[in-house]
């Protein structure tokens, strides 16, 4: 008897480095054979990190599973993968994988018909020809125009060794948090987190999640962790323009607020708290500076304190809930209720994600958020915290309990943009770097100018764009339409990729790259409690090669020593990371080696190393694929943010200019202003955005758009995955009342236009969105029609304009649009033709 | 929702027409029994029998196209105990077989065995009943309604009589037969009454049907909405055609009563053919709408 669910025709599985259709008879035969579960990489920048395993028979992946290495419990949960992870094999073995190196038919040295980029035919070429072209173009462009004329996304050891390349930079997902956190509280632009781990959050009586949707942005365990807090009795208040899926499961209250106006809401709350004496004056006096005139840092004008700004003492404008409501759209009664709740419920975790700060003048939100949070005194106490909890650390902040060692590969710095800058951005006061912020990248190519901190406008002459290595710049930077123009301007564009992504589509030469499933293996970190050790699942498909191999081969042709580019084989690198991995001791007093390595292991692996004693054997670790710290109630691994500071602020000051939490932060203001875009005050003030709510009032673009992280994809990765396309339809969502104004019905195809571009999408009408606000998931692979200029995929960067702001923030949640019914048809995305080349 | 069920539209219409034609043929046979010669009667009735056979064959073939795996078709009787689909196939099969026997026996004797024809007719009526039960046993409110019986039997009587009358007329003309005026008139009037009454019943039931759907559960309401929004033109057209057919035949009867004009089959042929065409089109549209307006109970 054949069960209905028996593998009937396993479509396209990896087999001897190729993809092919398997007949149902063969599938049955294969599925009867004994296979092996291998830990597979789930490597995307999705905001989570989970365990993924593949069942491999004769080199064919039959199915996947997730963590079952130990029994599941709330304290010691399995690291279960989300829909995207579960669909991973549909990606790695996708029919649309790039198979061979190729070049544009009308390409010629120095470009040929450049305007055909993105619409030319492809010609299959040999690796030798491809590498010769790439090396040749790099060489001639460098010799003619210099290294700064080569724009390289994502960093390249080869380019760094060859004199460097122009980089692009910006805070991307993190929005305005890096500098605000650094100067107001942590001292480091890498350290945003002043929130606690899940065992602490569970002690909260009230948890505010502000602009946070872990269900989509931090899949894996974060929402489940919050659920434990809810079960333990915490009340949840969500603040968002969108009653999001996390709120659907967790929220007791939803506070709707217009995008980019959160600062006004916070100021209205502060007003109510001040007027009703609902704030912790003792805490503010002892632990912070700048709240009122009596507590200002040295050298600051006492009139510039936060309290007087809120009360309107000097500017004559009290920031009352009514004042706030006009801007943020939240009912004044709800503003008072909300303020009352946060001021009187202790302990409280006052948590935001990045989204509200990914706005024009986003710094003001971060300032206002922590200021109002600090007014409640919920700092360093059990179950109390104020700050960010997002991405793969969402719900569970704190130092890693298990961490990998170094790979042992020495860095090669980029002489043009030194390695110590990288993400999230350079020092605006320094002049040892060149390179445009993400928002000015396409303008830099097209106009030859960009802004370089205090140095102001700088000239550049970009002649080549390299998308080798990583990234999805063309699709993922604001102003996609300018990006296309930029790509059609330069002399050479090269991409390495798994698919004909947007980056690849507009290139001259495209190189097929391997995925982590086709490489030796590696370690992945995510939440603080576990370390994943994944292994190779399949041989490289077709002619796909590792990125580092491509770098070496191009390097060779430029006369660079391959051993400089790739000094240590991958296997040895992984071994080094394993040997150097550490785990927290049982008593929490320090760290010890994680992996037990025997001399036999070293022999078998054929690597250099010393035997060592650790917690888990090398082969056991490989087999399990994960090491996770078993947590239990009352263990020693709890992280309570700012605990020691709260206990003794004199002995344990925070790393700020004053040693205290800075409501008035002079350095932040100076730093932001030095970038030469938008200015920010030392205290939180509401200033309207460009293309913000206020700009909708003239009716030209009457709707605000937020571009959320969408669970079809991890940014742009996996957008082509058919299972995910079927599950998540990339709908444009809006409120039915708005739709009625434009004669739009649920399911209609609508044309959405901003000042920067036009997309079409099916519309989904929902009462979960505030009237006046719309949303579309970011990351869809742009499908721009050459005739009409309309992007039918709904890439949000077609709509988002480039508007540099603050410290180099990409204000993706500040966008205004208009909507009308589109009279043409549009098939569901999963029915579109795949981007097949050869 | 089910807008692509052409094989089922064809199958149900043809089998129902076959059953109806067979029955009307039997009625005609009974009316004329002992009134005209056996041999002559046989010649009048035979073309209808051919038509019935043709419908059975084409209808059955069409039904096969509905199946995903017709090679497994031998299994269809395995669930007679609870599946109306099994029963339908059994009774349609039975009707077909009995028709064949009737037909072959008739050929030998040049006479249709009316006893056997009565049995065949009864089995045919049960087949139509089973057919309707298939739909009333689903989770599709638009089909669970007694309207399904009305439209299925409606088709049986409408198309059946119209097919039968047309073929009888053809037979009379072809064979250059003549028939006594009063006999001919009996047939035409009984034919016309059947059609008029059937149309009238349908006209009465239709608004009740749509009204009860509008007051039903979500799926029923969706069906009703489909009918009076998306399909309102087709629905209107169907009823216009049906009414036109009905009025045409009412006019025929009127002529008999008030104009005191004797009706014969051949003299009425214009009306018969015209009624046949408009009602046929109306029925095809009706059956299309039957499937297209079926909305299942759903999650949502």
């Amino acid at each position, binding site marked *: 008897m*054949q*069960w209905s*669910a028996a593998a009937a025709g396993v479509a396209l599985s990896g087999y001897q480095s190729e993809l092919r259709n398997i007949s149902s008879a063969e599938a049955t035969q294969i599925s009867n054979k004994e296979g092996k579960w291998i830990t597979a990489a789930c490597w995307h920048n999705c905001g989570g990190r989970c365990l993924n395993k593949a069942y491999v028979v004769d080199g064919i992946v039959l199915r996947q599973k997730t963590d079952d290495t130990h029994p599941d419990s709330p304290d010691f949960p399995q690291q279960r993968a989300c*829909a995207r992870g579960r669909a991973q094999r549909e990606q790695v073995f996708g029919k649309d994988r790039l198979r061979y190196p190729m070049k544009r038919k009308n390409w010629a040295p120095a470009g040929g018909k450049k305007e055909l980029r993105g619409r030319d035919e492809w010609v299959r070429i040999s690796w030798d020809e491809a590498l010769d072209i790439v090396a040749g173009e790099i060489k001639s462009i460098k010799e003619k125009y210099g290294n700064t004329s080569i724009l390289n996304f994502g960093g390249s050891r080869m380019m760094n060794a060859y004199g460097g390349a122009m980089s692009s930079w910006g805070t991307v997902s993190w929005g305005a948090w890096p500098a605000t956190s650094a100067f107001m509280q942590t001292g480091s632009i890498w350290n945003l987190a002043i929130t606690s781990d899940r065992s602490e959050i569970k002690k909260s009586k009230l948890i505010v999640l502000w602009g946070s949707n872990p269900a989509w942005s931090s899949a894996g365990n974060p929402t489940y962790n919050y659920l434990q807090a809810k079960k333990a009795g915490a009340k949840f208040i969500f603040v968002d323009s969108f009653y999001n899926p996390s709120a659907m499961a967790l929220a007791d209250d939803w506070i*709707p607020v217009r995008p980019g106006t959160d600062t006004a809401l916070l100021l209205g709350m502060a007003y109510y708290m001040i007027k009703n004496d609902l704030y912790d004056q003792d805490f503010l006096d002892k632990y912070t500076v700048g709240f009122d005139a009596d507590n200002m840092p040295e050298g600051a004008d006492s009139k510039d304190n936060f309290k007087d700004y809120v009360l309107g003492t000097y500017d004559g404008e009290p920031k009352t809930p009514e004042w706030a409501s006009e801007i943020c759209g939240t009912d004044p009664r709800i503003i008072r209720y909300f303020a009352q709740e946060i001021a009187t419920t202790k302990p409280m975790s006052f948590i935001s994600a990045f989204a509200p700060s990914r706005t024009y003048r986003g710094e003001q939100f971060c300032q206002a958020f922590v200021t109002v949070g600090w007014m409640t005194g919920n700092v360093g106490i059990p179950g109390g915290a104020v700050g960010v909890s997002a991405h793969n650390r969402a719900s569970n902040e704190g130092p890693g309990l298990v961490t990998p060692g170094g790979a042992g590969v020495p860095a090669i710095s980029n002489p043009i943009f030194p390695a110590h800058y990288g993400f999230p951005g350079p020092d605006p006061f320094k002049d040892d770097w060149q390179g445009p912020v993400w928002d000015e990248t396409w303008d830099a190519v097209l106009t030859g100018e960009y802004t370089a901190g205090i140095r102001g406008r700088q000239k550049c002459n970009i002649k080549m764009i390299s998308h080798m290595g990583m990234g999805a710049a063309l699709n993922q930077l604001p102003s996609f339409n300018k990006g296309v123009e930029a790509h059609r301007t330069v002399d050479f564009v090269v991409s390495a990729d798994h698919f004909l992504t947007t980056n690849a589509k507009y290139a001259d030469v495209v190189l097929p790259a391997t995925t982590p499933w086709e490489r030796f293996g590696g370690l992945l970190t995510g939440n603080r409690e576990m370390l994943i050790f994944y292994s190779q699942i399949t041989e490289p498909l077709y002619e796909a090669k590792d990125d580092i191999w491509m770098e070496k081969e191009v390097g060779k042709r430029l006369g660079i020593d391959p051993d400089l580019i790739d000094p240590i084989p991958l296997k040895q690198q992984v071994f080094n990371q394993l040997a150097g991995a550490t785990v927290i001791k049982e008593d929490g007093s320090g760290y010890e080696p994680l992996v037990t390595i025997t001399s036999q292991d070293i022999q078998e692996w054929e690597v250099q190393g010393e035997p060592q004693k650790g917690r888990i054997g090398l082969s056991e670790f490989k087999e399990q694929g994960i090491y996770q710290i078993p947590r239990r109630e009352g263990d020693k691994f709890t992280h309570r943010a700012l605990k020691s500071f709260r206990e003794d602020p004199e002995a344990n000051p925070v790393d700020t200019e004053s040693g205290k939490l800075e409501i008035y932060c002079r350095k932040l203001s100076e730093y932001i202003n030095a970038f030469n875009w938008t200015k920010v005050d030392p205290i939180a003030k509401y200033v309207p955005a460009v293309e913000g709510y206020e700009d909708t009032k003239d009716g030209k673009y009457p709707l605000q758009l937020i571009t959320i992280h969408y669970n079809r994809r991890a940014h742009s990765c996996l957008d082509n995955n058919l299972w995910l396309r079927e599950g998540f339809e990339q709908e444009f969502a809006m409120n039915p009342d708005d739709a009625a104004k434009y004669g739009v019905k649920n399911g209609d195809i609508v044309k959405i236009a901003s000042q920067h571009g036009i997309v079409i999408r099916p519309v989904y009408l929902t009462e*979960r969105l505030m009237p006046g606000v719309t949303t579309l998931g970011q990351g869809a692979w742009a499908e721009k029609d050459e005739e009409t200029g309309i992007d039918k995929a709904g890439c949000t960067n077609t709509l988002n304009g480039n508007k540099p702001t603050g410290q180099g923030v990409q204000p993706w949640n500040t966008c205004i649009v208009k909507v009308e019914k589109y009279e043409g048809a549009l098939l569901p995305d999963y029915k579109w033709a795949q981007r097949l080349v050869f | 929702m089910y807008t692509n069920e052409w094989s089922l539209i064809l199958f149900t219409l043809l089998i129902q027409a076959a059953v109806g034609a067979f029955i009307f043929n039997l009625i005609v046979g009974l009316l004329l029994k002992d009134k005209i010669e056996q041999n002559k009667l046989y010649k009048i009735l035979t073309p209808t029998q051919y038509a019935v056979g043709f419908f059975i064959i084409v209808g059955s073939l069409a039904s096969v196209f509905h199946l*995903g795996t017709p090679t497994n078709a031998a299994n269809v009787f395995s669930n007679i105990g609870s599946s109306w689909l099994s029963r339908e196939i059994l009774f349609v099969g039975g009707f077909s077989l009995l028709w064949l026997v009737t037909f072959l026996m008739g050929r030998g004797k040049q006479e249709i065995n009316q006893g056997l024809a009565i049995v065949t007719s009864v089995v045919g009526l049960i087949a139509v009943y089973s057919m309707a039960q298939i739909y009333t046993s689903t989770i599709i409110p638009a089909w669970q309604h007694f309207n399904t019986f009305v439209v299925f039997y409606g088709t049986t009587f409408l198309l059946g009589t119209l097919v039968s009358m047309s073929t009888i007329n053809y037979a009379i003309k072809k064979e250059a037969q003549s028939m006594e005026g009063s006999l001919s008139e009996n047939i035409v009037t009984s034919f016309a009454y059947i059609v008029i009454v059937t149309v009238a019943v349908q006209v009465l039931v239709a608004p009740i049907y749509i009204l009860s759907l509008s007051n039903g559960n979500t799926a029923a309401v969706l069906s009703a909405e489909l009918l009076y929004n998306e399909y309102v033109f087709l629905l209107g057209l169907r009823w216009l055609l049906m009414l036109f057919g009905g009025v045409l035949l009412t006019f025929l009867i009127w002529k008999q009563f008030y104009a005191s004009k004797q009706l014969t089959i051949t003299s009425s042929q214009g009306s018969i053919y015209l009624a046949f065409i408009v009602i046929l089109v109306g029925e095809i549209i009706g059956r299309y709408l039957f499937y297209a307006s079926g909305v299942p109970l759903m*999650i949502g």
Partner: protein
Amino acid sequence: MSEKGFFFDMTACIGCKSCQIACKDKNDLDVGSLFRKVWLFERGKFPNPRSYFISMACNHCKEPKCVDNCPTGASYRREEDGVVLIDLNKCIGCKYCTWSCPYEARHYNKDNGKVEKCNACLDLLQQGEKPACIDACIMRVLEYESVEELNKKHKETTKDIDGLPDSNITKPNIILKPHKHAYKREVR
């Protein structure tokens, strides 16, 4: 017989569709075919939207209309645990069962001309594992066990919520912990 069924805690479902994709992976389903599907329900009006998710596959009903109506006996209910199965060797692809399931659990597969559906991952059950969807759930809101056990374990459950067909039609083996927005109200 010890009847088995699904339990679904609607209160904590985030609609992530991990179950849906795990099911697709386990059953190797092409696009267009879903044995388990996550549904989003929306009611209410801003600023008080009422919305919730339901994850649903075949409910292996006690009185499955699909089995009653199947002409071939290809659809049947397994004696020992009530799992509703399809014997593909018997199925003729008449699609009648798809008109008989109020939960849209059955899918006609054009490629093989047969109807397919959730079989509760029979092969995994035989190996002592749970259906693929259960262990995929990142909110741990799905369970599959004997109905008796589930009823013991979970209180304040229902089979009827706003948005699902009346459970009296087929007596589904699904036990729901209703979301606060999903309590059944008078329909129209």
